[in-house]
């Protein structure tokens, strides 16, 4: 790594961002071809600021992508980053002429579209007002003013004349909300505007797939992993990628769905919902390693599953939506694998487990110890004989202790409540002056001196 790049990534790392030093397995050009719209820049820029090997290529592509659009802020950000990482690249020099011309054009277009919209409003033509708001919203979105775009799209609602138009508005709002990473809004707009009951109709099917993918991304963003997994699994591979490639690609559906399912579903659920699901299998064919990882997990070969996933960790760390969740998802998958691995045994030697789950983290003994402490694994470690023994749950004993505990708590709580009732009935509560914080008794230390003042 040259000095500029080193300084660039040091700054980024200091800001708490993730840096990926390994070479990813995907090809940047092929990868970005899967997407349309503003997500292309977002992804390129994210890779440029995360991946050491792809930094310059991704940022150069991001500069070109920004320049092909109308968002001058994005262009400035991309050039600025590229200048820090590789100042000698021709794209690292700011094209001021283009910038000024584009800024002027953006201003003019805004004024024109606003004037047009005002005209429509004066004429009270609902359809024109709706379209005027849509044009203005799309313009704001293109120039990067997402809040104004959201506002304009929202203003289209009173002027809709068909369900399809309402659905279109919903999709526009969802797209902008995803770009803003406003996951709650995504879920709200999806439930309000974008839903379809009829699966047989191709349009409805496309809409459902769009909705499921968008909902999956939003649930992932909110760490509702199981819901996200089921959302992705319900996407249909019959629907053309163009329907949803402004937010995700079919490969993303396979990766997001596969990883989330591995982290949250048991072996039976994985078999039924993923491997036996014809539609999702189509997605999985685009990412065969994910399919392999799932198959290995279902077949009880957990170490192999983890090995596959580890080899793709750098790729997933470069994904805009997945990056933040990779450590947690991987940890969950690993924990689940260890728990499943131990299930059939009464005692397992630690060195056998160390070989099976030789991960990058701490030693297997420490890992098991943390899992037991966190309540994720019911086992005990014999640190002398270097083995781990899963504990079988004794339902009968649990039931007995639970029942006795419940009786005892009932008696204790009843007595306490009766006592409280009697205090209140005797008008002995501590009374305040309706001001929280008021204290109406003298301090105990003073009271102790004043013995005899009880009555």
């Amino acid at each position: 790594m040259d000095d500029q790049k080193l300084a660039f990534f040091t700054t980024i790392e200091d800001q708490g961002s993730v840096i990926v030093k390994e070479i990813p397995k995907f090809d940047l050009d092929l990868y970005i071809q899967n997407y349309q719209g503003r997500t292309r820049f977002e992804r390129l820029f994210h890779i440029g600021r995360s991946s050491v090997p792809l930094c310059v290529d991704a940022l150069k592509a991001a500069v070109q992508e920004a320049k092909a659009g109308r968002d001058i802020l994005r262009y400035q950000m991309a050039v600025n980053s590229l200048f820090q990482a590789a100042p000698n690249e021709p794209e690292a020099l700011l094209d001021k002429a283009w910038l000024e011309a584009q800024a002027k054009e953006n201003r003019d277009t805004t004024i024109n579209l606003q004037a047009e919209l005002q005209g429509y409003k004066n004429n009270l033509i609902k359809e024109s007002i709706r379209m005027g708001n849509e044009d203005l919203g799309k313009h704001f979105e293109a120039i990067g003013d997402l809040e104004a775009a959201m506002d304009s799209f929202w203003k289209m609602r009173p002027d809709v004349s068909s369900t399809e138009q309402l659905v279109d508005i919903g999709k526009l709002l969802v797209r902008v909300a995803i770009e803003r990473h406003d996951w709650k809004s995504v879920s709200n707009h999806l439930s309000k505007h974008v839903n379809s009951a009829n699966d047989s109709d191709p349009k409805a099917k496309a809409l459902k797939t769009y909705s499921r993918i968008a909902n999956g991304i939003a649930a992932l963003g909110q760490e509702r992993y199981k819901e996200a997994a089921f959302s992705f699994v319900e996407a249909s591979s019959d629907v053309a990628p163009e329907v949803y490639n402004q937010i995700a690609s079919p490969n993303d559906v396979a990766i997001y769905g596969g990883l989330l399912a591995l982290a949250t579903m048991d072996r039976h659920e994985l078999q039924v919902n993923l491997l036996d699901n014809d539609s999702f299998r189509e997605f999985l064919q685009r990412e065969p390693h994910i399919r392999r990882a799932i198959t290995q997990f279902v077949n009880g070969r957990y170490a192999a599953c983890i090995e596959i996933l580890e080899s793709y960790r750098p790729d997933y760390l470069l994904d805009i939506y997945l990056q933040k969740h990779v450590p947690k998802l991987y940890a969950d998958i690993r924990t689940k694998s260890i728990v499943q691995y131990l299930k059939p045994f009464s005692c397992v030697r630690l060195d056998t487990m160390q070989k099976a789950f030789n991960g990058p983290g701490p030693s297997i003994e420490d890992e098991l110890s943390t899992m037991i402490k966190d309540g994720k694994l019911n086992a005990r470690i014999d640190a002398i004989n270097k083995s781990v023994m899963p504990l079988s749950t004794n339902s009968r004993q649990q039931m007995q202790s639970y029942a006795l505990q419940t009786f005892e708590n009932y008696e204790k709580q009843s007595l306490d409540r009766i006592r409280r009732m009697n205090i209140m009935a005797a008008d002995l509560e501590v009374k305040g002056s309706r001001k929280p914080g008021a204290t109406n008794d003298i301090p105990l230390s003073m009271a102790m001196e004043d013995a005899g003042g009880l009555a």
Partner: protein
Amino acid sequence: MDSRLTVLTAFPPAAGIDNEEYYKESQQHAKRVRELLRDNAQWIRESADDILKHVNPAVCSLSYLMILEYLLQASGWTSQQAHERLASYLTEFFLQFDARQIRCKGSIWSDVLKEVYNEHSLFPASVAVEVGTAALLRLDPSGSILTSHHCNLVELAYSTGNVGPVLPLIQKPIIYMPAKGMSTTQPLCDMSLPPPAYVNPDSQLTDGLTSFAVLQYDFLCGLCFTERRMWQQAFDAFERCVTYPTRDGGCSKIMTEAYNKWILIGLLLTGKPPALPETTSQAAKKIFATQGKPYKLFAQAFKANTAGNLVREFEVINPELLPNEGNVELAKLVLAHYQRWQIINLRNVYTNISLDKIRELTQSAETGGPLPSVEAVDQLLQSMIADGSLRGVIERPTDGSPAYLTFLSAPTQGLSEVEFSAKVNKVAQGIKALEPIIEATNKRLASNREYISHTVKRQFDAAREHKLGLQSAGGGFEESPFHIEEEEDLMSGIPAH
């Protein structure tokens, strides 16, 4: 026998009379004895020893009590020797008296008992506490009602360092509080009466109490138990202060002091910060959140794997808070127990673990680091095993390999059907024993204005719901067994915010 002695032994009457008759006779007897004492003052003063020999305190308790009351005020009984004799008679009386007779003359009993524990008492504090405890438990063996005597006794016990003798009393769960207006139409000597019906300011077996007195009682109980290292009981006592009922945003200083101690004892008892019970009032929660914050942070630090935070938090609260609230020793004990709890919790992870690993995994909060050597770990483990806090054995292999700790596991098999059934029966009896308590509380609440208005409101709401249910089901209100006047609901139609 002297006819005067016959008067003194004339009560109690022979068995077979009802409670009303018994009560009436007790009052007449008290009157007769009063007259006898007035008319034969010299005889009583001079022959008290002989008289009291003839009057059995366990049988003729009322006469005995009235003679004692007279002697306590009599001019001839002020010498040291007389005091010693009087103390002996008082002890004899309070250990044997008939509680039924005493209920008929509560004021005299209370006055004489106060003489046992007041500051000019004839007894040393240790004896006063023991006699007072015995007297209170004789009056109400269930120990379920708090009296002003309880409050005074526990204060005397704690301030004079005589906690032991008062333990039988303060270990009884207090359920009832004395209140005026609790007098019953039944005679007080009716032995089937629940404690609040005969122990109240009207019967003069106790004085009235204030919320401060009740709180102080629980607080002092907590201090007594703490002194005895009875952590569970201390925790419960402080918890009663913490969850004490409040109204109109009130919260007492004692409650916040109790909260701080409750946190520290919770750490000692369970090894983790205690969670506030649901019954804690909102106002108290707010005050605890601000005034108890340093203690809460200290407790949070107890959960950490390393002792550094705990030591830092201790240094924050140590200079000012702890000495002011008398919690220095308690907090130091918490520090000492930090590593012990770490070791105890290792049983949830390991079956066998080397002493070296224990040294590596645990830290002393007194030094802020690991123990200096494996030998120190060995010593700590031995002390924990000896005091019963750790169920385990230190194995020392003969092949020269290092010693290790084996945790002894609890029996994995559940109880047999017979054992389980016996345990369930035992707790079921405990729950069944609540019935008379609930009945007594119900009776008591029946005269409480707020409770009555609350009950009427609930009945009214239930009737209204029933009516709405009938209407929605197509039935008319005429079919309802409830006939309640319609009332305009001014709040209906206002959306909730």
